[in-house]
């Protein structure tokens, strides 16, 4: 019941403030930054996959000793950061959906193939750089170009596919969600500011008037002792 009340109120608030249907494409620069971050972080998942395929059961041992000693911490941090970002994005989309009462959409999603290409290339470059630096620091033989290309692609491509799908989905919605939440909050603040200087009684504020809509009103009327026990009813 309370969900309906909230939805109804904010919808009306939105209409009152001229927000309308918010469809915003994600800012190009922000998308590039998100892709860069996801590419760098996702490459660690690709690294894990490549090593798992290459070394099987010994992969964990190899990736946590010698020049790879740093890797478990980096991988965990990277995966944790990606997971946190994903959850935050989902929360925003979920909250916006709750406020709007319908799906948060964007009419312009970024090109999947572009995102995939950028993420994959970034991940592959990071993987190659990581392997070369590890080889130089550890004084071991460097992976050859075909090795980097074959194992890098095998490990990074599946991760890039998932990352591109997720980023495309989220980028199309998070921006809209953020826009929607921001507008609703602004509208609420504006209303509050507009009403506070006149020291209008709280019950007379427009927000309250909205709250006491048909559903909310009936909801409030039901609270308290049974009407038969009220003094006014005697």
């Amino acid at each position: 019941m309370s969900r309906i009340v909230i939805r109804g109120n904010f919808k009306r608030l939105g209409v009152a403030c001229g927000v309308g249907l918010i469809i915003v494409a994600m800012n190009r620069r922000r998308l590039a930054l998100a892709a860069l971050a996801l590419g760098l972080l996702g490459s660690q998942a690709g690294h894990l996959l490549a090593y798992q395929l290459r070394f099987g059961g010994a992969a964990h041992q190899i990736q946590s000793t010698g020049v790879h000693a740093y890797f478990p911490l980096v991988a965990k941090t990277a995966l944790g950061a990606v997971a946190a970002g994903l959850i935050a994005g989902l929360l925003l989309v979920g909250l916006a959906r709750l406020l709007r009462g319908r799906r948060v959409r964007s009419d312009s999603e970024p090109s999947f193939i572009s995102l995939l290409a950028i993420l994959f290339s970034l991940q592959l470059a990071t993987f190659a750089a990581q392997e070369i630096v590890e080889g130089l620091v550890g004084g071991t033989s460097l992976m050859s170009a075909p090795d980097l290309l074959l194992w890098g692609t095998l490990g990074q491509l599946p991760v890039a596919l998932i990352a591109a799908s997720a980023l495309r989905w989220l980028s199309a919605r998070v921006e809209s969600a953020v826009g929607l939440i921001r507008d609703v909050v602004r509208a609420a603040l504006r209303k509050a500011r507009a009403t506070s200087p006149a020291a209008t009684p709280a019950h007379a504020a427009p927000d309250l008037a909205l709250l006491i809509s048909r559903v909310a009103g009936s909801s409030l009327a039901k609270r308290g002792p049974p009407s038969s026990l009220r003094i006014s009813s005697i």
Partner: protein
Amino acid sequence: MVSLAGIFLHGFGQRYDLPAPLALYLFAAGGVVVVSFVLVVMFAGGQVGPKAVAYPRRAAPLLTRIAQTPWPRVVGSLIGVLGLAAVIITGLFGSTDNDRNPAEYLTWIYFWAATVILSGLVGNLWSWLNPWAAIYDAVNRYIRISPVWKLRNLGIWPAVGTYFAFACLELTSGMANRPLIVAIAAAGYTIVTLAGMALFGRDEWLDHCEALTVLFGIIGKFGPVEAERDELRRISTVYLRPLGVGLLQSGAAGWDRVVFVVLMLSTLAFDGIEATESWQNFTVTLEPLWLPLGAWGFFAIRTAGLVLLTGAFLLIFIAFMELVLYFGNRRADLMTTATAFAFTLVPIALVYNAAHNYSYVVVQSQGLIPLLDDPLGKGWHLLPALAGYKPSFVLAQASTVWFAQLVLIVVGHVIAVYLSHLKAGEKFRTAQRALLSQYPMLLLMVMYTMTSLWILAQPITAGG
């Protein structure tokens, strides 16, 4: 061709000790590409718009007259049809030993390696050699063939599929060295192509579904001969132009064309990678995945490798195109931009093809000569004077091969840098933006120069 390759191409008996470390060669080659970029910017960097891609061409009246006679087509058709017939007959009825069967030499060396290189140097030879078009035209002269169906607008995707299938036969099936399989594939492709032309129309089929016509059409743009055709597709004028500039011509844009060009590069690169230790280790490591597939396992892992490499090449290319657009500061369509710049990669594919197949063309091609005495391996002596011919290795010393490959690869990349810069001039509004947009392309070219040289060096040199 596996055994042939084992004998000559990927193992020269002795490996060549480079006089300097391989890395030095790689960096020097990359450096040459960078210097060429600077020179291009200094001497050819000012033009923008359509002027940037305008190139000089000169009408060649003598060539026009020759091209307008029926003779080039007649001679070309005769060579094409006889070649196709020879592949099918010798493949079906000749020796099962690939070294002793002309079908192998005709298909993989004379057609696949030499004709591609020649078409790059001269122009689209396939338009005259195409045996299927010749057969169709000959039949059509007596029995009028009208198309039954209209081909759906699929671009050149069918040709992409056919080209990939051809690459699989050559590189991943492990059957390219079986003359019988080569003959069956040639016969099957002949039937499909003739049926396709009859059902959908000659030019419709050839332009969209026949991979070799599409391939040679692209390669022919590199050549110095340009033929202008009238509405009936007859040659009206023949021009001479600088090498490579034909690739600047704007054609239809589409991902199908981009994928086709990328396949041209990736199949060649895969052919090189297959000969490296890295690939051997890769397949051995992944044995648990493909070994259970039995006889199909090796085919599966190789095809997966080819797909993986093609996917990687395509994605890296697209990422670089995004960078080109970003630095060019233009909200242009990615597909159009990618198509325009994909054609500037064709010189790289051509030189890589020439470099990779160098020893095939100069040494192994000679293996056909003694076989002319007894093409079917039946003990005939048709040309006894040729029976004892021994291939000459004069042009195939490991050092010669290495330096020829080095020069070819660098020259190809320099041409690609030049074409790419001109194309950028056409696409972007100012010379400054065009220049900025080319930094990513330069990086891509330098990386590709060094990687392809490294791959080519593996079977030849011991200097790494």
